[in-house]
């Protein structure tokens, strides 16, 4: 459109219309003079602005509010975690004594959870509570296992994963024990509960939502 407006008149049209097309510079000068003459209320700059702004707003549009981009701190991905060894205990921190406070905390937590452990409390109730509880900090003992060398290992649970327990023993050694094919014993205030590891292969967060079914006998 603009091109059409600014285009020169064809020569034969000049002849028919009896007008002589002005040269480009002359035309510009004429236009500004014409506008100035007719639009006396406006200054030259404003006229220039209008000429420049060719877009015509037909609708009313509200200016969009500019949203501030919240920069979320992206966590590490799995590969980076592995490389940085975030979830691995450093050898200098593998001390049994370091985890004793955690064990105390856990005992406190279980007592609160079970409304105080008394000798006359119902063991089944406690077990129901323990099923959904978190075990980090508990003292675990391997009571039974298909692999004999795991049997008898005792220590504080420092990390629970889907398939393994990581235990720190009295000898300050970190032991990784698979849950499958083992039975663990947890002792608290005289109550000893046995955990069938094969049925426990869940992360502790997932376990709290899982429904455990009652079974008559479970074999390793």
């Amino acid at each position, binding site marked *: 459109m603009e091109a059409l407006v600014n285009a020169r008149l064809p020569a034969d049209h000049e002849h028919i219309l009896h007008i002589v097309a002005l040269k480009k510079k002359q035309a510009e000068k004429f236009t500004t003079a014409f506008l100035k003459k007719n639009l006396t209320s406006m200054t030259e700059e404003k006229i220039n602005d209008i000429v420049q702004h060719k877009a015509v707003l037909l609708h009313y549009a509200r200016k969009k509010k500019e949203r501030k981009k919240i920069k979320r701190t992206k966590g590490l991905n799995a590969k980076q975690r592995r490389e940085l060894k975030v979830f691995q205990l450093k050898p200098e921190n593998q001390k049994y004594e370091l985890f004793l406070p955690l064990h105390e905390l856990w005992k406190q937590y279980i007592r609160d959870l079970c409304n105080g452990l008394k000798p006359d409390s119902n063991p089944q109730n406690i077990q129901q509570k323990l099923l959904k509880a978190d075990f980090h900090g508990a003292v675990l003992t391997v009571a*039974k*296992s298909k692999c*004999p060398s795991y049997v008898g290992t005792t220590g504080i649970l420092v990390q629970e994963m889907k398939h393994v327990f990581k235990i720190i023993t009295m000898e300050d050694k970190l032991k990784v024990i698979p849950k499958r094919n083992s039975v663990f014993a947890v002792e608290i205030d005289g109550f000893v509960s046995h955990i069938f590891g094969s049925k426990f292969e869940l992360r502790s967060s997932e376990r709290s939502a899982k429904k455990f079914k009652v079974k008559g006998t479970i074999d390793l």
Partner: protein
Amino acid sequence: MYRELEKCPRSLLVCEKSNFENEKSSHDTHVSKHYFNHKVSLVIPECRSLPPKLASVINNFKKYFLIKDLPVYEFLDKDFLENVVWNGALYALSYKTSIDQDNTIALLPSSHLILSVDKDTYEQLGLEGKPSQYNHKQPMRYVVTIDLTEKSMAPGGKRYQRVLSSLKERVPLKSHFLLARHNSGVEGDRVLQSLLARYQWKDHTPVVRSHTLKDLSCPSLRSTDLRGEQHSCDPSSFLEWLGAVSAGVSCDNTATSFTSTYVCPEPNTPVSQALHCTLSGLLLPEDIYSLLQELRRYFDEPKFTSWLSLTVHGFMDSPVSWGDREHGFHKGGENFYNFVLFRNQDYWLHMGTGSNDRCPP
């Protein structure tokens, strides 16, 4: 009728023929490697009563002890290990425990402690073992062998502590035990007595029963013909005959008898009398060996008979048969050997085992 019952599970019979004077003859190792013997039976044709020399050997069989509810960890006591076990020749076998359902324990004179335990006990015990050879698809029984002479098993050692804590705290295995000792050192006796004093115990001497059989027919044997190819009876029918004799089955097949139609294998010779003598108890291989030596001397004086036989039965619930070969119980649990001694110091040795057993040596 009952097809399954009629079917016989496999059994093994190893026969060999040799001479006692042969240097390569291995009769002594076969005798000494068969650790747990519960019955010895002697059949001497043409003999009325035990010759005095034989009788004295038989009466000199070592006595054995029966201890009630003895915890297994007592064997690992430092004093006991040093004075009794390592000095050799201590035989201990759990009593009234069935090899196919209970935990069976044996202590061999080679200082090997063998625990044949079921799956649940094994999982709790925490000691390395091997699944039993006679399992089906899923192992239900494991055999744990502990060499007590090993360096790591020295009292105070790491493995010693582990075994001790396993047997003391995790699974306090206990059982009645039959116990016998060949070497009797003064110090060993003292330690053994102090052990016995802490538990209920009783000592036993092997029970001797002998009786004379009258007018029976004996298979005629020739020492050169072990397999019975030259018109004498083959080993299995000979052993069957021996069994019939010791069980008191009549072999005359009379028309009026409805209980047994058993006949003595052909060819046979009538014998006016025969001596059948049995000993039962926990019999030590060393004693059996000296009995065998004495029996060899039986032919020093001229006798009517050309052969005599000595049968030794092992415990059917023993976890081992010969050496540390695993033994199991399927239908009979038999593990036995039989010597047939001939006048010219030739001998036949039959070694037989049931279906849950390795081949005899």
